């Protein structure tokens, strides 16, 4: 085996795909196909799609609840000595998208994911050409699958598609120069600035997030940053000002899009539906704070 062989470039790996939205108006510039991968490395209290957080453990709790008969349990042999294990199998043709399985699941997972490789995902994306200008991969947390992203985006680039990553910034981007070379930009969550606030919101520290923000800004790959506004968990105005100060050495923050997203309870796990949704006038106040801090392209959602 030669030296290249020892590095074993990972190709054709399959990743868990939660869903693919053919036309999306809300995942970056223009019309894009949005790909949502399953699995996340944070535990945000306000997560609005908690069913994308974990992988299915095949407990089977959802199977009997499915009103459309789209879920079943099969016994599959394992690698060892003929022992068998249960697997939940999903039939997309029968699914009526009622979400009963997701509401039943106690593990923040979904039985509806499809394991797909880059070529299979690309085939789904190509169906939308020439109506789309680009592709956005989101999650869950798509940076859990950097090899897949590199392969997919390289193929997208050959087709002239614009490529965006939507990430929580918990995986170090500087370790993946090949991926960045085929990525037009990253939409990065900065969920809080102070470390203790970030831990309160997500269960993890934000050292890597901020390191990524600075790195991506310096590489001119930071397409957008965003913060979900929950007043009970941190001081949003302080977060905005701190991010501006932090990023100023690395980029012209006037060119950077800052998306401020008002917390909404839809989809959020029941125990966390306790926060107040900030009203429009408060969000407008935050816009002014962001303007004063030096941001110019501010989007309120």
């Amino acid at each position: 085996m030669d030296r290249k062989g020892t590095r074993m470039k990972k190709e054709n790996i399959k990743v868990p795909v939660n869903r693919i939205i053919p036309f999306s108006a809300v995942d970056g510039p223009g019309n894009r196909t949005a790909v949502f991968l399953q699995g996340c490395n944070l535990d945000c209290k306000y997560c609005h799609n908690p069913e994308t957080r974990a992988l299915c453990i095949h407990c089977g709790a959802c199977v009997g609840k499915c009103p459309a008969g789209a879920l079943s349990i099969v016994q599959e042999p394992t690698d060892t000595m003929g022992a068998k294990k249960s697997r939940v199998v999903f039939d997309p043709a029968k699914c009526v998208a009622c979400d009963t399985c997701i509401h039943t699941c106690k593990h923040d997972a979904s039985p509806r994911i499809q394991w797909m490789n880059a070529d299979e995902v690309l085939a789904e994306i190509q169906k939308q050409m020439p109506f789309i200008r680009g592709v956005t991969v989101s999650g869950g947390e798509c940076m859990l699958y950097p090899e897949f992203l590199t392969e997919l985006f390289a193929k997208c680039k050959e087709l002239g598609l614009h490529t965006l990553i939507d990430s929580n910034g918990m995986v170090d981007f500087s370790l993946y120069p090949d991926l960045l070379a085929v990525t037009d930009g990253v939409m990065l969550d900065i969920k809080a600035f102070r470390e203790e606030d970030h831990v309160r919101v997500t269960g993890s520290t934000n050292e890597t997030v901020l390191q990524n923000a600075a790195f991506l800004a310096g590489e001119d790959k930071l397409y957008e940053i965003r913060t979900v506004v929950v007043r009970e968990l941190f001081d949003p105005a302080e977060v905005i000002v701190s991010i501006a100060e932090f990023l100023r050495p690395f980029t012209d923050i006037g060119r950077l899009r800052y998306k401020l997203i008002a917390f909404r309870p839809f989809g959020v796990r029941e125990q966390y539906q306790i926060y107040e949704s900030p009203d429009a006038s408060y969000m407008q106040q935050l816009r002014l704070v962001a303007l004063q801090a030096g941001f110019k392209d501010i989007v309120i959602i």
Partner: protein
Amino acid sequence: MRAITMDRVESTRQEILNIITSPTLTHEQKLTNLAGQADSLLEVLDLPEGLEDLLAPVEGKQCICDLFEGHAPMRPRYIVPDYEKFMKEGSKFLQLEAPKDFFEALNHLLIMYKHVPSITNYPVYVGALDKLLEPFIDEVDEATAKKFIKMFLVHVDRTVLDSFSHANLGPEETKAGRIILECEEELEQAVPNITFKYDADVTPDAYAIRAIQTALKSAKPSFANHKMFAGELTEDYVIASCYNGLRYGGGSYTLCRLILGNIAKRAENIKDFKDRVLPYVMDIQARYMDARVRFIVEDSGFFENHFLAKEGFIHREKFTAMYGLVGLAEAVNILMEKEGKNGRYGQDTEADALGVEIMEQIRAFNDNHDAPYCEATGGHYLLHAQVGIAQDVGITPGTRIPIGEEPEELIDHLKHCSLFHKYFPSGTGDIFPVEVTASKNPEYILDIIKGAFRMDLRYLSFHDKNSDVIRVTGYLVKKSELEKFKAGQRVLQNTTHLGTGAAKNGHILERKVR
């Protein structure tokens, strides 16, 4: 002229009285309807045998519809005057010299609009307003230009009482065009309807975005595939009435439509439909149109005497006529059922393929029919996907997918459109209400338009699902005016009446939101 029965005279007299005493018709609407009753008593056209049976207005059975053109057409259905010539030369009949400045230009146009006839008695084409006004636009400061253009547009909305009236913009960027788009976004009016001729190689993205922002707010402009229309009708084409591609300085003598669903009901199966029933009805509609065209050209005296023709604002040689159809969806579904198959139009490959086969047959028929006085379009009529009328029940416009059966994903809907738009040089189109999130990302709409026109789509309309002005089928109404009319109040524009029928019968308020 053939005699008619006294029974018919008596029932017409009753109709006339109903119109005169109507609480909801305005004075102008009464005049138009009275004229229609008068000409309904005439029998002068040389009608093909078998027509009467196919034309009888029996719900669920009528196979051909002549769209209220009457029994003795005294003018072409759609007239497209050369407004540029008028702006350069003025008009002897109207006692106007060429406009000398911006203000006179606006005033001249408003005068001309009151003298352009059509099936609706209002002009169905009010000009390429950007090109007509651009030569004058720098004579005044922008604020003044905007104020007067806004007054002009309000004047048109309140006096041209019909949203079949159509202005054109683009594909080039102009200052006048931009101001018109800004005004329409602020005004949210139904009249005039506007088409933006879009060509990705000519129209700058930022200008297209400007047009899209106006469209999302006020349901206009719609977007026409400029390259496609120019390729078929030459660069000298316009979009008039709902979305009709016609030659500039010409128009359309007539428009009749095949009601394909009802035609399919008369067939035993697909083979019988293709071999016997459809050819029979197509032939009769073509010969009926021939008779209408001949009367207008040879007997009505219109082209000899109307000042638009005498002064060269229109030319008989630039006219054609529109061979229309509706209800391809129903025809396909009925024929599939007769064959014992489940596939439905818009959802099933085999059903859609049958739709394409039917369209190929209609196109071949039209290409082989020699139409009188249609040298402007190669001696043939132009196919037209008619948008339906308020009275249509269970008849889907043109080749559209029935409301309520649209594919789940917009991409699949667009791909379906791409199978059918190419057949209709004199117009077709699809309408897409969109979510607010799309309104915040107009580039999203632009990407769809760019992709669509590369895929041979012809004509697309978008509006925000929450906007007051909406596109009914081809024309525009204000939802707030529909509510007034439903509450029994008189409303200014005729098309509000039609929109009310279309909301009830055509479910146009229930389109799938994208």
